[in-house]
């Protein structure tokens, strides 16, 4: 990853951000144009509306190695598609209940309303979240078993079976 300095512990959080095209994504452009520097830990994915964000995207991001997920949408009442952001809010609240049960800390998942003009808010939110997740440390999801992982043991079993006079 292209992050800057390493912390003493060597952990730089990876944060995946889903930003709405009409507001937060534009705002993050503005942050750049205004030469406001924010933590390079965030990877921004542009979506057409926060209502497009399927909870599956968030879980997939965590499974693929994100330590946190940030969602940015238009302020209530301002969604380009009328109510996509309300939908995002409800999904976010429900998903958080699940993630909480799974042991994913609150600070790792964040929803923010950021208008196109609020470049400074992008900077503030990203920096704040990066620090919070840095403090939490890496996310340790339960490893998912795959058949390949068993191959090694399988060979051992074959050897054992061979000893019992079985063809392998």
């Amino acid at each position, binding site marked *: 990853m292209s992050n800057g300095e390493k912390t003493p512990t060597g952990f730089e959080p990876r944060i995946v951000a889903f930003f709405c095209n009409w507001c937060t994504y534009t705002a993050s452009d503005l942050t750049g144009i205004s030469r406001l520097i924010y933590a390079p830990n965030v990877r921004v994915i542009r979506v057409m509306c926060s209502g497009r964000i*399927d*909870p*599956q995207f*968030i*879980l*997939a991001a*965590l*499974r693929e190695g994100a330590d946190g997920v940030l969602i940015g949408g238009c302020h*209530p009442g301002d969604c380009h598609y009328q*109510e996509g952001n*309300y*939908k995002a*809010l*409800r*999904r976010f*609240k*429900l*998903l958080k*209940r*699940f*993630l909480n*049960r*799974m*042991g*994913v800390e609150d600070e790792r998942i964040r929803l923010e309303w950021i208008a196109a003009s609020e470049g400074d808010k992008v900077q503030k939110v990203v920096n704040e979240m990066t620090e919070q997740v840095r403090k939490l440390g890496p*996310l*340790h*999801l*339960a*490893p*998912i*078993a*795959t*058949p390949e992982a*068993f191959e090694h*043991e*399988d060979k051992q*079993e074959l050897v054992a*079976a061979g000893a*019992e006079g*079985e*063809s*392998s």
Partner: protein
Amino acid sequence: MSKPKVGFNWLASCGGCEEAVVDLEEAILDVVEAVDIVFWPCAMDFKKDDVRSMADGEMDVCFVNGAIRTSEEEEMSRLLRKKTKILIAFGSCSHMGGIPGLGNFYSSESILKSSFLESPSTVNAEGVIPKTETKRSEGILTLPAFQETAKSLDQVVEVDYYVPGCPPPVKLLKDAVQAVLENKLPPKGAVLAPDVAQCTDCPRQDTKPEKLEIKEFKRPFEIEIDPKKCLLAQGLMCLGPVTRSGCDSACMKANMPCTGCLGPTSRVKDFGAKAMAGFASIIDSTDEEEIDRLLDSIVDPEGTFYRYSLPKSYMHAICTTMRNGSGKKGA
């Protein structure tokens, strides 16, 4: 062609899937006529050694039900995989982890503790907890290891096909056997059930509003259920919209909402997450506090949305940090 050799096996399961085989009723006679059953420990006297002594790939098809939770189940899965040409995950547990998969909300240590020490019906004065090895004067007694998480069959071995359901509808089993006999199986990896949602063929479909708006979620015992009207429109947690069809609307016809046992359609990766997306969408509120209140009316949302599929979800189980928090070393 000689009769295909068929095996059935159960792992961490309740026996319901075996019941589904028996539910074939007279059709089971046709099946027995058409195939050679070479392994079926639930119904006939077969031992592991019977499988061990088979040549690799000797069985043509093996139906395996149940999740994988112990080292013994894992070993058996691998053994059967070696001995069969076509391995079919049979039922929700081997398909997605199923009900035993709900154990993935807890650490293995806390499960053992609550089952053997804390449950009100347990009498265990000496506080004995099963161990893989116990020394006795007669020698060392061994038990299979209780693993950290429950797994679906395809998380342990390669699976060729899935027959979903809790238990699988008889028709799906019949069709699967038929497909094997006629050599008409779809491409490998397929779920042998229609790839559309329950609502598509639900008899209540006409009463499902174009735009659903729910102000309160209810449980079946709390209301007088209208036997004709879409259950979701009545505020019940019907998972029909995210669940694969193939059971002939069994639950809806019995006036009960679908709980999702056939799992998702092929486009969905994480059943529970998709279900959460759907249910959150139809909540009729834009007010934060009201949304919280409405969500509170969903009893055990995690268990409801992941009833049959937690091990197959992106999360698989609770984070290892949480597991460790309960005093157990991570995997």
